[in-house]
């Protein structure tokens, strides 16, 4: 398949082509990376899209929630892409990707595209390829992109930095989970959903909402005049999933009304540009053999007390920065 054929297929919304294109952006081969950039520059989305990040600890029911939400969106006539990012898979060796077994009805629908991705050893990390995959899905005609990530480590921040709306799922039983929620995470949440609010847990979930509302009250809002939204759902019983969608839409309209929506996407791109440059500079700096040798030399000198760290840094940079 030539690059033009691939681009054309993506633009026409062909599943096979979109999947191959994502493989290309995920590839660890440098040559593929260049082709991928060429491909991305050839495709673009022609419609308005919504990007939603969905996070939560393992066992909170992310897949079940996405299954319910995705099916609802399809009923409303939308096309849904789900990109699943799992940073918890090991750095070496293969991984088992079982997401679709948990999104059984959604995964069989024509209007849905679900792509779970292993993380092992990707150039540029999780963020890079997910961002580009997202753009490819938009070009292929998907209206809503759901980016799923496990709520451990850095991945929430990375995902939050590429979506319009960041939704976090929590379990009922507020007291415990409030302690589990990381300070930094609270600041990036747009919508907080208590899942598994069914049967005995319904009341507990409602109490949790109150506790979270109190806790969030103390925070400076992420956007002026747009507060964090809270609600309880039961993904398994498909209860109040429609409300969740209304909240997402409400949040997006508020962003648009205030003129934040486009500005935020632009800003994300600029930040992304800066991040890429920084990453690449660092990669080249530490990747070059002469630099490695020079640095090793200086490290030895510092250890022996022959040179101060500051002087060493100046020496290193003055010899290399000009290149």
């Amino acid at each position, binding site marked *: 398949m030539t690059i033009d054929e691939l681009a054309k297929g993506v633009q026409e919304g062909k599943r096979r082509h979109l999947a191959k294109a994502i493989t290309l952006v995920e590839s660890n081969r440098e040559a593929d990376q260049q082709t991928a950039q060429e491909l991305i520059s050839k495709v673009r989305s022609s419609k308005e899209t919504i990007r939603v990040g969905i996070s939560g600890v393992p066992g909170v029911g992310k897949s079940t929630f996405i299954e319910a939400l995705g099916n609802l969106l399809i009923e409303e006539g939308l096309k849904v892409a789900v990109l699943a990012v799992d940073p918890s898979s090991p750095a070496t060796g293969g991984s088992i990707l079982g997401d679709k077994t948990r999104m*059984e009805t959604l*995964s*069989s629908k024509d209007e849905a595209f679900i792509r779970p991705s292993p993380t092992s050893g990707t150039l540029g990390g999780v963020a890079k390829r997910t961002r580009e995959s997202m753009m490819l899905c938009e070009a292929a005609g998907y209206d809503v992109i759901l980016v799923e990530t496990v709520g451990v480590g850095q991945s929430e921040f990375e995902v939050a930095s590429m979506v319009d709306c960041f939704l976090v799922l929590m379990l009922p039983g507020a007291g415990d989970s409030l302690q589990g929620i990381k300070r930094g995470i609270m600041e990036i949440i747009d919508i907080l959903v208590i899942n598994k609010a069914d049967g005995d847990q319904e009341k507990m979930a409602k109490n949790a909402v109150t506790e979270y509302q109190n806790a969030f009250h103390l925070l400076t809002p992420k956007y002026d005049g747009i507060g964090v939204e809270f609600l309880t759902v039961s993904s398994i019983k498909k209860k109040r999933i429609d409300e969740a969608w209304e909240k997402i839409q409400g949040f997006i309209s508020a962003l648009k009304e205030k003129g934040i929506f486009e500005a935020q996407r632009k800003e994300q791109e600029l930040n992304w540009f800066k991040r890429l440059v920084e990453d690449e500079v660092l990669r080249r700096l530490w990747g070059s053999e002469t630099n490695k040798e020079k640095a090793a030399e200086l490290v030895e000198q510092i250890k022996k007390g022959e040179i101060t760290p500051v002087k060493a840094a100046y020496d290193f940079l003055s010899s290399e920065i000009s290149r």
Partner: protein
Amino acid sequence: MSDNSSGKENWKKGVEKLLKGDKAESLNRQSPEGFEIQALYDSEDVSNRNVDPGYPGEFPFTRGPYSSMYTQRPWTIRQYAGFSTAEESNKFYRQALEKGQKGLSVAFDLATHRGYDSDHPRVVGDVGKAGVAIDSVEDMKILFDGIPLDKMSVSMTMNGAVIPIMAAYIVAAEEQGVSTEQLSGTIQNDILKEFMVRNTYIYPPQESMRLVSDIIEYTSEKMPRFNSISISGYHMQEAGADSALELAFTLADGLEYVKTAVESGLDVDAFAPRLSFFFAIGMNFLMEVSKLRAARTLWAELMKEHFEPKNQKSLMLRTHCQTSGWSLTAQDPLNNVVRTTIEAMAAVLGGTQSLHTNSYDEAISLPTETSSRIARNTQTIIQEETDITHTVDPLGGSYAIESMTHDLKEKAKTIINEVMEMGGMAKAIEEGYPKQKIEEAAAIKQAGIDKGDITIVGVNKYVNEKEDPVDILDIDNTGVRDGQVDLIDEIKAKRDKVATKEALLAITEAARSGEGNILDLAVEATRKRATVGEISTALEQAWGRHTATNQTIKGVYESVYKSDKGYQEIKSKIDAFSEEEGRRPRILVVKMGQDGHDRGAKVVATAFADMGFDVDVGPLFSTPDEAAKQAIENDVHVIGVSTLAAGHKTLIPDLVKILKKEEAGDIIIVAGGVIPVQDYDFLYEAGVSAIFGPGTNIPKAASKVIDEIRAQKA
């Protein structure tokens, strides 16, 4: 006793002399169950364990539930069978009964198990395969034509669609002029283990438990000679559980059912005597004998402790056994006759009440007439040519058997206590605990076999270089389906439509409200000629279909295998591929059709991931369309189709066709599982690149898959 201890010291010295310096204890082995198997047991071992097996027919029934056991009447030879249409199966049953079989055991096809009529689009490849297709009471009547149901004890392996099948059986009998009071037999009705291992459930767990309890209620009132449930460990062992896990989870399931029935208002003595059990008997001869003895002892103790029944019969564990299907090999299949004989002996010496012996060709395909005959004769020979039935519990009092019975019982008790702490078996299953334990045991065992630590003759040792093909029974799946569809159309055209609809609505209503007995209502609907699929759908409308959360394990296979040189070689080969390709080889492991046996798929998934593949696991019960879509979206290099229920000749060609249509013909397909050699050419012709039969060494398979991907790219 002092004589005894010096005797033991002397024995040790003797052994150590033979071992040229090694300790006698070095001959002890660690069992997979997690306790030590001693090289020698003596009277001290028995007295230290405080073992007194007592007498057969007396609490705690270690030596047998009945006092006379086989000396009065041997166990029931009950061969599980069914295939194709009701007519064909009926013919087969009648022949078997003439040849010395004593009870019937019906195998249903997977479409029926999952509550689909034969005309449903999801079951195209499953109809009439691996069991008989039953869509309505009309099929059931044909199935038992000329077989008097007031005299014949009938066992039915049904869990998912248990309601419409029980109803069809009851109405078929009714129309034969036989009342419910006269019916004898067993319905498996064990839904909990379906959520753990066999996966032929339909509704969510809680709702399914309501059905179990409705059936217990119905039978305790109207079917006094019928066993309302057969609590099954069989499928756990088949899925990889060791004897302790099988024993513990089965008895824990049993306790959960008793609890549910008691909570629904039944008196424990009204139904507990009609509970029956079902265990697998594998190749660990002494362990399996001990397992049945331990099962009876532990059940009696647990029932007494938790439910305090007044009737002694409520404490008695009665069981059916089946020889292990997993122990059968596709290679050198006549060896399976020997394996089955040894297993049958263990079941009998353990004191089973009825027994199924497998046919030697079951690792390859459905049994033929010849293989079925030999399987049946394995039992008649033990019953009538040997003296085994002349003495009750002949191994009772053996130092080894009594000690192992005790140790296994204690081990199982520990596991049951863990389950109890989690809030019982239903809760434990919800958390995925038993499933994970069993899958770990399966992965460890597979690694042991692949590595050669565990011997399987003809597979990893003493391999027969030149295999003769074995005759197989092939079912014309399409023909069976067409016939079934015609019959369904005929029934639907003739019946009173309004009456059927009302009867079905009543079922949905009862499911929603929680009121009424659903079996009672289903019997009514069946009289009105509602089909199996329609009754299942009526319940589904209220409850939905259950979707399993599929957990997968990682690292267990590698933990056993790591040190092996061959294993490291395949890992490097995969790493090299990843380096060149820019990503890891990616495989979709998928099961298509309604077969829920996923041990093979799970073991392959976890082993391949450990070796360095990225493995996508497909949902159970996929259609070829769904499998193709998933393979394409995930852009896998290869699809691994796991097949055990003979649907491959319909489903795999479909998959190939769909891939081609979607411009994804370059995705390689490999197949694994129970595939007769006779089908290999057909599948290669259809586009399959490699076929891995039972007993395949997994690292070798992985290596082959990499070669195939490279060949495709070249």
